[in-house]
């Protein structure tokens, strides 16, 4: 609050004071007082009023300034009253108390919402762990009694498992907590892990991998990364198209310089499937986006690539894709060197 604004706010009492002072001066002149004496009295009064005003202004300004600084310093501005002292003047106190009550109510709400979302997430985690036992049992029943019927049941179980896994990673990827561990992982190992995990889906769709140079270590959470790669591999199987013969998915990595002494490792996963229409390419990472391929080729939930980007963002990995309709899709994951992020 500037001095000008403060004075403007007190224009009426000031005007009354000036009028009263002018009237008093007039009376004194009429009664024959010496002009110098009248000027002296008026001067003292004006000076006293000015000093009082400035002192009061400084006092108030200190409070508003502290409040404003607190608001600027905080990401969560509703915590501002926690960082500001209650002021010494009544209007300020009224204002401060109202603000404090409001932000307290807000903080309670936020805490409750956080708790609810955490509880829900914990429930999802528990549920996912529980459901895995019956899935494992059903899978073994199918395996121990091989027949065309159990083999197709097995394929359905794969889908169930895939959806369950997505639910788990959705709840992990969208949570406010940071519950993953970034460490050095071997790309070759994670890629093989994901391939083993999605083996049946890929084999069933007649898609085989071609592994290129993968001898790199990157910084990531190995489980999350295996899930991310798995989603991309499943897409390669899903959108393989109606071609005869074997589909291919090439996986390789390379190092490249992104700036002065800044390097990154890029993992590329390229399929030779149906590709993505140019109009859809920009939106495939959006949540729930299914696009033309989702309608034409496979039942799509629009979650796979959304989770890919979400989890990658959390791990500090850049994900993007390039696609040519009819020729295939290439998904890239770029892992910046730790030095760059430190």
């Amino acid at each position, binding site marked *: 609050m500037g001095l000008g604004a403060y004075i403007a706010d007190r224009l009426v009492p000031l005007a009354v004071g000036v009028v009263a002072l002018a009237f008093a001066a007039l009376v004194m002149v009429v009664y024959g007082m010496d002009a110098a004496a009248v000027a002296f009295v008026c001067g003292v009064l004006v000076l006293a009023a000015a000093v009082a005003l400035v002192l009061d202004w400084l006092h108030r300004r200190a409070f508003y300034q502290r409040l404003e600084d607190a608001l600027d310093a905080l990401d969560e501005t509703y915590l501002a009253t926690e960082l500001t002292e209650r002021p010494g003047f009544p209007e300020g106190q009224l204002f401060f108390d109202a603000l404090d009550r409001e932000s307290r109510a807000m903080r309670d709400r936020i805490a409750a919402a956080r708790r609810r979302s955490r509880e829900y997430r914990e429930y999802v985690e528990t549920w*996912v*762990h*529980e459901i*895995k*036992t*019956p*899935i*494992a*049992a059903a*899978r*073994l*029943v199918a*395996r*121990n009694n*091989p027949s065309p019927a159990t*083999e197709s049941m097995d394929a359905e*179980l794969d889908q169930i*498992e895939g959806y369950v896994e997505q639910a788990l990673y959705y709840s992990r990827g969208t949570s406010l907590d940071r*519950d993953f*561990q970034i460490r050095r992982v071997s790309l070759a190992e994670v890629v*093989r892990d994901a*391939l*083993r*995990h999605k*083996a*049946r889906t890929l*084999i*069933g769709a*007649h898609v*085989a*991998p071609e*592994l290129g140079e993968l001898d790199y270590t990157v910084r990531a*959470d*190995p*489980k999350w990364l295996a899930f991310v790669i798995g989603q991309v591999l499943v897409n390669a199987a899903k959108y393989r198209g109606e071609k005869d013969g*074997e589909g291919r998915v090439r996986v390789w990595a390379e190092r490249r310089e992104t700036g002065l002494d800044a390097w990154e490792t890029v993992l590329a996963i390229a399929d030779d499937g149906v590709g993505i229409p140019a109009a859809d390419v920009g939106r495939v990472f959006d949540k729930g986006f299914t696009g033309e391929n989702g309608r034409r080729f496979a039942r799509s939930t629009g979650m796979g690539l959304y989770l890919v980007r979400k989890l990658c963002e959390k791990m500090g990995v850049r994900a993007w894709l390039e696609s040519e309709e009819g020729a295939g899709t290439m998904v890239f994951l770029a892992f910046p060197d730790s030095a760059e992020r430190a």
Partner: protein
Amino acid sequence: MRRLLVVEDDARLRDELCVLLARNGYEAEALTSFADVAAQILAAAPDLVLLDLNLPGVDGTYVCREVRRRSSVPIVVVTSRDNDMDELLTLSFGADDFVPKPYNDQVLLAHVATVLKRSYGEGAASAEISHAGVTLDTARCSVSCQGRTAELTKNELRILALLMRNAGAVVSRQRIQEELWASDEFVDDNTLTVNVSHLRSTLAKIGVEDFVRTKRGMGYLVE
């Protein structure tokens, strides 16, 4: 034959696990009560323990630690809790390996075989599989018939072992591919065909003809 002890509270999963293990050349036993699990494991003295972490009334990591204090029996932890912390925790409590549920059966078997090999030396996990006069030695990677022996490649061995274990039933090409993928051999359809024809010519060298039969559109069969 190696004796495996299954510690799993879900009855159906337990039964199916035992069937799976028995079919793959192991002797499988299971605990059915979960009072003082550690003592029961020690009393049973198996060659390997498959341990579920979520047991009624007792924490699997505790069981793991208790068993490890008095015995060096290999322990493979099988669990649906798949976060890193659990994995590190169980391994630090003395488990030898960690397989997250719901596992692929081939992956589980591969883990078991690896741990057995590590604990009891090469050849420990081997079972000789015999069928119709043909004997497969999984440790030496060789096949023999009437005194004649031939070496097999790893892939040929895996394919033949799978077919012989399922003798009498048609094994689909997909199933064989899955078996190979489970041990990081990501072969495609053509490679599988090549592997099988090599396997046939290897068998022919020791005088075994028509052992692996093709069922068109279905897969392969060892009768």
